[in-house]
């Protein structure tokens, strides 16, 4: 294995940021050098929620590496509170101040008396771990602010939604719709909620962990608030959407309304009928799926099992706590599985596999272009495609949207573009 590594995933800082940013009335202060702040800001700004970017810097300077920057962070906390009046301020300690030993937790203790917002502080030095660990630790940390409730509401919490995934907004709407049709209500989405809603997450009767993201949080909530949890597939396609509904219903000791499900399936069938020749045409198309564990396994299975595509490579860009179990269980829908591979080695594998389409992120744009393969942008980070309608990739409606996107990614190209 190579020592050098061209990563497919980010560091702990960005995992933590993604979790916090889903709390709508929060501000995240990146306590680190300008590059860390600038990169984090761009990750948010190049997405599809440009007027809701809530990541700021602490004003850290190179000279602070000598004298420390705790004071600067304190000023930043105060200033950003005055500007944005957030309910929650998260200060994320980057590599430089972590190594220097800035006591940001002490700063938070001091500032708690001065500002009427909750404060979360985390050490997220780049060398301390990958993004998924930052995400898990942050969701776990958020449980400290939750308020115990005696009587469960019969509602569920959905854990593992990342608001900066492409079409996340549409996915949430579709998942809510599917559940609502089955008479199931969502209490809180972690994290796509106000901080008060997060605090009231223990009102739920069941935690539903999507694709394994946020499992640590669900485990803590079970211990601390006695809320059971289930892990479910991300609902890509018909099969997984039905599985999702069945799992949630079972978790609540209920049955799903199969008539409603049949109606949904019928609607998907109507859509499929309208493009069936193209779907016949791409059947067995060799593809690669590159994405985070919480979604990529389920996407790859949908593509293989329902669309009949040949998933030659599945590259998991970022693991989660379920990844090793899934690998152990095995799944013949995936060809070669690569876990957090080096990009150079992955690109080499993609070239050898001869794929026609890559389901990946913006950073697969070049290899897709080199291979003259279509790129379907479905994995984090998508920084070169926007989505401002409510069209989902998840659920029954998402099935058709995915079909539409895949077919269009093929047929809109020119012969000149792909020849030779």
């Amino acid at each position, binding site marked *: 294995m*190579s*020592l050098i590594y061209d990563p497919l995933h980010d560091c702990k800082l960005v995992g933590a940021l993604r979790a916090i940013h889903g709390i709508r009335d929060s501000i995240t202060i990146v306590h680190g050098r300008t590059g*860390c702040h*600038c*990169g984090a800001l761009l990750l948010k700004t190049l997405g599809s929620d440009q007027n809701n970017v809530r990541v*700021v*810097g602490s004003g850290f300077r190179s000279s602070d590496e000598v004298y420390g920057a705790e004071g600067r962070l*304190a000023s930043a906390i105060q200033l950003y509170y005055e*500007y944005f009046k957030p309910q929650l301020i998260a200060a994320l300690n980057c590599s430089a101040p972590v190594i220097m030993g800035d006591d940001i937790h002490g700063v938070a203790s001091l500032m708690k008396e001065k500002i009427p917002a909750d404060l979360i502080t985390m050490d997220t030095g780049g060398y301390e771990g990958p993004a998924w660990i930052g995400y898990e630790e942050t969701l776990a940390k958020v449980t400290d602010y939750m308020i115990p409730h005696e009587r469960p509401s019969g509602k569920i919490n959905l854990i593992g939604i990342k608001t900066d995934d492409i079409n996340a907004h549409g996915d949430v709407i579709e998942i809510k719709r599917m559940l609502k049709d089955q008479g199931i209500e969502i209490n809180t989405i972690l994290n796509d909620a106000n901080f008060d809603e997060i605090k009231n997450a223990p009102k739920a009767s069941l935690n539903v962990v999507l694709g394994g993201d946020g499992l640590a949080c669900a485990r803590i909530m079970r211990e601390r608030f006695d809320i059971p949890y289930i892990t479910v597939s991300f609902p890509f396609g018909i099969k997984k959407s039905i599985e999702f509904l069945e799992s949630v219903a079972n978790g609540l000791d209920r049955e799903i309304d199969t008539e409603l499900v049949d109606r949904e399936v019928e609607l998907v069938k109507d859509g499929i009928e309208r493009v069936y020749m193209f779907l016949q045409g791409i059947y067995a198309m060799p593809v690669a799926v590159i994405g985070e564990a919480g979604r990529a396994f389920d996407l790859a299975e949908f593509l293989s099992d329902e669309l009949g595509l040949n998933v030659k490579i599945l590259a998991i860009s970022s693991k989660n706590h379920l990844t090793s179990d899934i690998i152990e269980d095995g799944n013949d829908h995936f060809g070669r599985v690569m876990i957090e591979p080096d990009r150079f080695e992955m690109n080499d594998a993609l070239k050898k596999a001869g794929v026609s389409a890559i389901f990946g992120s913006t950073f697969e744009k070049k290899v897709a272009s080199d291979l003259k393969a279509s790129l379907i942008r479905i994995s984090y980070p998508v920084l070169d495609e926007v989505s401002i309608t409510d069209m989902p990739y998840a659920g029954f409606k998402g099935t058709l949207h995915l079909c539409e996107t895949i077919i269009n990614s093929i047929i809109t190209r020119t012969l000149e573009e792909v020849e030779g």
Partner: protein
Amino acid sequence: MATEVREKNEISENESSFLGTFVSTYSTIPLHGITAIPGKIAGSLLVASAIEDAVPLIHGPVGCAFQRKINPFRPYSPFYTTPCTNLNDVDVVYGAEEKLSQGIVETYRRYRPNLILVITTCPSDLIGDDFDAAIRNVEEEVNCKVVYSTGDFVGRSRPIGYQDALYAITDQMLCNGNKEVEKNEGSVNIVTFPIHGAGVKVAEMTSVLGDMGIKVNKVCFDHTRVEDLYELNRADLNITDYPMSWAKLMKERSGVEHYEILGWDQYDKNKDPELLSPYGIAGSSRVFMDIAKLMGKEGMAEEVIRNRRREAEERLSVLKKDLEGIKVAATGGMHGLGLSLLKDVGVEVSILIYRMQVLEHRLTEEAIEEIVDLNMNLANKYEFDPEPLVNPTIEEEIEAVKRSGTDLVIAPSTTSHLYNREGIRTFDPTGFMLNHQRVGFECPVELCMLLKETLGTAQKRTPLLSMLEYDPHAYNMTPHWAKLSLAFNQLRSGAIDDGRVCEDRKPSEVIIDEPNI
């Protein structure tokens, strides 16, 4: 590298207007110094990516490699290849020099580059790795040059990473005394910031210099390779956009003179505002004559400049007839569309708008006054008599535009809609700057044609962008982004003291109502 440069007029037809649009689409993100500053890694990666056969090696953790794939200078073009040494907590405790040495060898074996640019990061800087030693340990195992950039070589020259990487290349590779170079007598290098179209932007300059008997040794960065860099010190003169630390070093070590198109140093000496105005006929003539003097070609240059100038003026005299009497509201400051260009095209500058809010956090009052005076002095010199508006609201601007009978506002696409909905036409200076603005005599001709085209386009009265709420002062931004910007600049400028003071400060002392961006 473009020694065979193309003549300018090829761009609009062949380089595709899409490229301009592609660049412009991202140019509206309020980033550089407004809400954030790209770190040194991004600047160094810009250099590595501008050299075709170079590969960066980031000596740091995964985040420094993954997140920096986003190119803040060109967000439409990520840095796709960013291998790193994947530092972890053990490395931070015990050091990572050995890892760096091995990483260099692996990088070479994997990519077979001609140059590996090692870019250090916060963790590797702070733990005190000896980068030089780590490189020397494996120098003989790799058949390419290895250079390291820490961000510490160039003081406060910005962008630091960009300046530092070029300095490192000059220091450790080009001018380290290891290589004798045969001079290319009477030649210059033209080295511009590696943004799109560098080759095109210097095409006319190359042609003019050629007529003056000055050869172009190298143009950077335009398909530049390591072998091209090795030839830089064959030239007599380096021409850069603005002061560059590497050029000063090359002068010290190899005797290659340097000349900056934006003459900050000269301006400091005699405060002639035209020294900061290198565009248009007058500005370009001055720049070409400066270069000619440094190259000892004044005699030939005078005639070349005269001829080129006459040709351009003849074309302009016809073209600008349609612009006679057209009143324009221009933007003052350091980055506006140059008044000299507006003078060339024969419009009347009726209003001069200054938006100094961001600068107020960074510059002294005197410096800001100097910028205002500088623009007014230039306006007077060109016989304009504009009404100055300092930090106006949009309502004040529109009122002034209507009152003065101004026909066109020089306004970027971030604010155009605010004027357009009032029936006022706009011209985008950012698009012009990115795609057309350069030293040369063609530039005012292009501006003239573009202004005429703008005045003939349909009025846009109901732009969707006007549906949004904008900050009353920083009206290129929504209130949310205006706050991000204001807070960023307040922290950066030290307007907010650090916590040593903060502890005793009352909340009201945080200036939160200041509307300046």
